[in-house]
């Protein structure tokens, strides 16, 4: 039984194509059921996000299944295969396992380390569970994917540094102040980035917010949003010594905060450090201010630089994540192969048992009135013969699944004893995941 992945993502298709094949979250029942109705498909999950649409399935006939799934994707959305083919990718077996684990661990995302994808896959799995299109293999596989994603997040720093400008600002503030709870933030001017950054600061513990603006009414409105105070623009500099973090974004053509004023403010603060973020273009704060001791002045480019450096860190950590994933793939594949041994052994036993029963019947009817004791004796003997014959091969099969010979032996047994094909749906097997 193989795991198969078919789909497209932001890496292979532009948004115009992706939106055409997206599945609506409100209407997952129909596509999931249709997918499962396909003859080669035993289990199925549909993952549909703004950056990817992927189908995860299990099948015994991989080639046929891949083609079938691509047709399904095209037909369901009333597109032609030609339109989609150049954007679609497909994976089987180990590659499929690796792909899903990478996706769940956010290694395939636009921004490595982003947290949304895991939740999105969990939701997709939820639908499959609800409509019973996920079986033993996909159940186990998806749970494995979730735990691997968690491992990657905790054991690597792939998700730990800020990759957006406003988060980067908070992170920098933490490197300067460590604790933001008792700090004061001042917003100078207005602007979306400023407000977003301010909101992040407030969410991270900053309790005091001052707002100043050339238009006092605007300042008051914004201050109300943050439960802070508004300050008149003409006199905002007098309040600066109480402020630890400044977010500035006015439309002024010159500096609203010259360097010498900043020096004075730091003296008044008795050298308590100050973090200033100047988002305005042209800049609001004299860049020479950064030369002052205990003043940390960042403009937009500086913040972008921090974000770029963090992204590089994430990419380095991604290598660690790949190593974790490689380990986990091996583990999962071992489990997958045990799935094959048990049904084979069961099938073999069943076959021999059928032969035994047939021969017992023949012998008993031929022997006429046989005493109970004799009957039991013959039954016991034939049973014992079968057990003894099967004992060694069974244990060898079970041991062999740990190495590459495993599949070979199983195949050989199936061929040599002419065993019937196991039921396509592994859900009906007896306890296959008993390990």
């Amino acid at each position: 039984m193989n795991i198969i992945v078919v789909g497209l993502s932001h890496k292979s298709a532009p948004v115009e194509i992706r939106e055409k094949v997206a599945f609506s979250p409100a209407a997952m029942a129909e596509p999931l059921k249709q997918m499962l109705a396909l003859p080669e498909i035993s289990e199925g999950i549909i993952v549909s996000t703004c950056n990817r649409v992927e189908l995860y399935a299990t099948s015994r006939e991989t080639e046929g299944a891949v083609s079938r799934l691509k047709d399904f994707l095209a037909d369901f959305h009333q597109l032609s295969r030609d339109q989609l083919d150049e954007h679609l990718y497909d994976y089987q077996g180990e590659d499929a396992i690796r792909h899903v684990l990478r996706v769940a661990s956010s290694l395939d995302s636009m921004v490595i380390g982003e947290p949304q994808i895991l939740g999105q896959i969990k939701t997709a799995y939820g639908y499959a569970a609800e409509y019973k299109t996920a079986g033993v293999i996909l159940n186990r596989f998806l749970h494995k994917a979730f735990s691997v994603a968690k491992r990657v997040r905790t054991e690597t720093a792939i998700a730990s540094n800020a990759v957006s400008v406003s988060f980067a600002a908070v992170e920098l503030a933490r490197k300067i102040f460590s604790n933001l709870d008792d700090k004061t933030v001042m917003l100078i001017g207005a602007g979306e980035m400023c407000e977003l950054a301010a909101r992040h600061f407030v969410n991270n513990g900053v309790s005091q917010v001052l707002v100043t603006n050339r238009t006092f009414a605007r300042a008051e409105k914004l201050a109300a949003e943050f439960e802070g105070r508004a300050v008149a623009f003409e006199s905002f500099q007098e309040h600066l010594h109480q402020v630890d973090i400044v977010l500035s974004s006015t439309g002024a053509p010159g500096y609203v905060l010259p360097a010498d004023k900043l020096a004075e403010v730091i003296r008044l603060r008795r050298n308590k450090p100050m973090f200033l973020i100047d988002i305005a273009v042209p800049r609001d704060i004299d860049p020479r201010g950064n030369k002052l001791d205990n003043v940390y002045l960042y403009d937009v480019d500086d913040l972008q630089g921090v974000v770029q450096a963090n992204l590089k860190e994430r990419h380095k950590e991604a290598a660690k994540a790949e190593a974790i994933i490689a380990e986990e793939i091996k583990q999962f594949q071992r489990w997958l192969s045990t799935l094959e041994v048990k049904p084979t052994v069961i099938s073999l036993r069943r076959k021999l048992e059928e032969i035994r029963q047939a021969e017992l019947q023949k012998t008993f009817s031929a022997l006429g009135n046989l005493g109970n004791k004799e009957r039991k004796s013959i039954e016991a003997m034939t049973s014992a013969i079968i057990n003894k014959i099967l004992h060694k091969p069974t244990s060898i099969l079970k041991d062999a699944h740990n190495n590459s010979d495993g599949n070979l032996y199983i195949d050989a047994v199936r061929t040599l004893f002419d065993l019937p094909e196991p039921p396509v749906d592994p859900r009906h097997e007896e306890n296959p995941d008993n390990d």
Partner: protein
Amino acid sequence: MTTHIILFKITLIAYFIATVLYLINVVARNEKSGRLARWTLFAGIAIHFANMSLRYFEVRYTPVADLHGSLSFFALCLVVLFLLFDMRYRLPVMGAFISPLALVLMIFAGIAHKPLLELNPLLDSWWFPIHITFAFLGNAAFSLMFCAGVMYLLQNRMLKSKRFSALYHRLPSLDTLDRINYSSLTIGFPLMTMGIISGALWAESVWGTYWSWDPKETWALITWFLYAALLHGRLSIGWRGKRAAIFAIIGFCCLLFTFLGVNLLLTGQHTFKALGG
């Protein structure tokens, strides 16, 4: 090979392992390595204590009269104080500074080892261990302060220049480093003061004068004034951050000279030669 020598070597190995683990923690950002390093240090100081105790029992006086003993004891004080700080501040990155320092001290102690014969009668006083313990604990605190100062300057440079190396993520915030600077000062300064005072009282009991201006005493006093100035500056004028970090470094250099330079370069009552060690 006597037991205490074996224990000494085991301690040295423990500090070496801790150093390697801390470096792995910093460079490869491996959290488990940091935890292991901490436990290795704990094990190390236990063995170190055992080593010092056995030496005491063997020679019947506090085993710090010679260069070997004092270097070894200083390493112990350093690691103990670091572990106490680590419990409060959780700083494996400081471990990456401290354990190599302890290791180097132990290596020099190992090189300086000579069998200890008889104790110079000058040292046969219970002032000896008191004076040494205060002095060394004070030194250890100032060593931590030095490390925090170096880290502060590194972190400050990165935040100012906006060029971040891998160390940036490992180092704690400027505020934390500054607070370590302050707390190690408030711990180290009284200890050093007690060290000087107990030294003076001891001198009185042996030589009849409290102070004889020998090089060690003089330099210890200079170092003391430096730290006193910093303490005053912090409390009243708002000295902090970069200035405090630089002071920590200058103070530590003075300290090194007081502790080692005087002994090795100059002559006077405090040299190990004079004390027969």
